[in-house]
């Protein structure tokens, strides 16, 4: 617990987050209070709901970081589980897949996070792509139902890849040894999480303010080109400002943050396409104002694996 507060960069980051969140909440409440006399405003109510949920999310994340590595791993395991549950809910499977799906939830997920917690990189990297990918389709085949077989196993495998494998790369950052500096990996995880979420928020804000050209009308009608460009620049800028949390120099931090932001948008678009395909608006209503867990961590899903391997390749010893 003490190590986090002792670190000026992390303490600064959480301090800034606290101030920004408090100010936004204050403004949100004042606006809502003023509008009350003129009747209900859905946009403002949603904004306030979103802010309340942000308190919860940032609170949980900072708490887990403060308590320690295993707690962060546990938090991401929980996120993985909730994401998996949401994805399975919309993912058409058949009775013959029951065993395979249960194996994913009860065995693959805990094992993957166990590997993260123990820092067993070699097995962590191949456990799902090799072992689960061999066993899962086999289990579906043993189920004896051939209908839609190929699309069923494809869906199930991608679901495990997305909700377990990809998400687990965020806490996997904690296993990186960045030149033997104590607590460096924790700061890197915070860097990733904050940059991704800033990118999301900035894209939303810039898009609402000056957005005109839709990025992809059929997939995500609310996303605009202006919002995208503005968002990644803001995210890059914030990344550069936060270079103290990373082993990067400011220019590198800018580029990495830019990359994270672009990948995050990619994840957002892909998961929006999945939603459109399934005819739903949100993955669930578990996070008031935001929708489901997958609506919130879609960007992390795509940014975390690339960020992890890039950093590991370039900087980890």
């Amino acid at each position, binding site marked *: 617990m003490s190590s986090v507060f002792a670190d000026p960069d992390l303490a600064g980051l959480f301090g800034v987050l606290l101030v920004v969140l408090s100010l936004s909440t204050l403004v949100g409440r004042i606006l809502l209070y003023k509008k009350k006399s003129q009747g209900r405003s859905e946009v403002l109510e949603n904004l306030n709901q979103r802010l309340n949920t942000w308190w919860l999310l940032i609170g949980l994340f900072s708490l887990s970081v403060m308590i320690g590595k295993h707690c962060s791993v546990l938090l991401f395991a929980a996120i993985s589980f909730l994401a998996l549950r949401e994805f399975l*809910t919309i993912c058409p499977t058949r*009775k013959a897949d029951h065993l395979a799906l249960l194996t994913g939830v009860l065995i693959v997920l805990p094992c993957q996070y166990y590997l993260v917690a123990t820092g067993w990189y070699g097995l962590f990297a191949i456990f799902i792509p090799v072992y689960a990918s061999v066993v899962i389709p086999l289990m579906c085949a043993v189920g004896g139902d051939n209908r839609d077989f190929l699309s069923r196993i494809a869906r199930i495998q991608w679901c495990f890849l997305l909700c377990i494998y990809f998400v687990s790369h965020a806490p996997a950052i904690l296993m990186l040894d960045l030149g033997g500096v104590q607590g460096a990996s924790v700061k890197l995880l915070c860097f990733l999480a904050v940059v991704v979420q800033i990118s999301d928020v900035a894209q939303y804000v810039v898009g609402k303010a000056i957005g005109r050209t839709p990025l992809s009308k059929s997939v995500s009608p609310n996303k605009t080109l202006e919002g995208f460009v503005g968002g990644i620049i803001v995210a890059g800028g914030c990344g550069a400002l936060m270079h103290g949390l990373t082993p990067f120099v400011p220019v590198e931090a800018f580029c990495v943050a830019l990359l994270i932001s672009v990948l995050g948008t990619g994840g957002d678009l892909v998961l929006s396409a999945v939603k459109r395909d399934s005819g739903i608006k949100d993955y*669930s209503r578990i996070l008031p104002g935001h929708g489901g867990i997958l609506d919130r961590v879609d960007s992390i899903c795509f940014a975390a694996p690339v960020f992890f391997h890039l950093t590991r390749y370039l900087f980890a010893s």
Partner: protein
Amino acid sequence: MYSQNKTISRISSEHSLANMIALVVRKAFGLTVSSKLSLSSGAPRVYFSNHTSHIDFLLVWSALPKETRESTVAAAAADYWCKNKVRHWVASRIFDSVFIERTNIGRCNNPVAAIINELDSGRSVIIFPEGGRTEGPDVAELKSGLYHIARKRPEYELVPVYVHNANRVLPKGVSLPLPVMCSVTFGEPIHLLEDEDKRQFGRRARVEIEKCRVA
């Protein structure tokens, strides 16, 4: 007589266990409840639902508010739930079920009479009028029990219920539940119309369940 003994013998630890189970079910399956009527009404009702899985009853029952839940019992098939001691204990002590016969129905073990008995003593009953679990999400043809309840006791509200996704949580013949998000939709209560016969009423009740499915 049987039902009264049962209520008295239920102890408070079993009550809190039941509440805990309801909480776990709601959290584990991210249960969302939508309803066209107030669920906290104290009046006895018949909730009639589609049936795809053993977990259906748990989901409908957990979806109800606490006060209502405490006065709501399940209609459990005697041939299944009295088969061994564990099943019987779960059904009678935890969930306060009224056992009904599906086979060998005679004068003294009439399922409709047992349900009406519960209603008359102020409790609501959850029934699955399809008469057994179906394989998929479609609602099967209903058995006539619901009609007989409606005819003999027109004063009680009959509430259609649709349980979404339970067949994916625990399909027939599977023993471990898969965490998939479920929802329960309560529709508007129906009553038997004056000139309605058994078949017409059964068809209408089935449509009402289907309506909850798309709502």
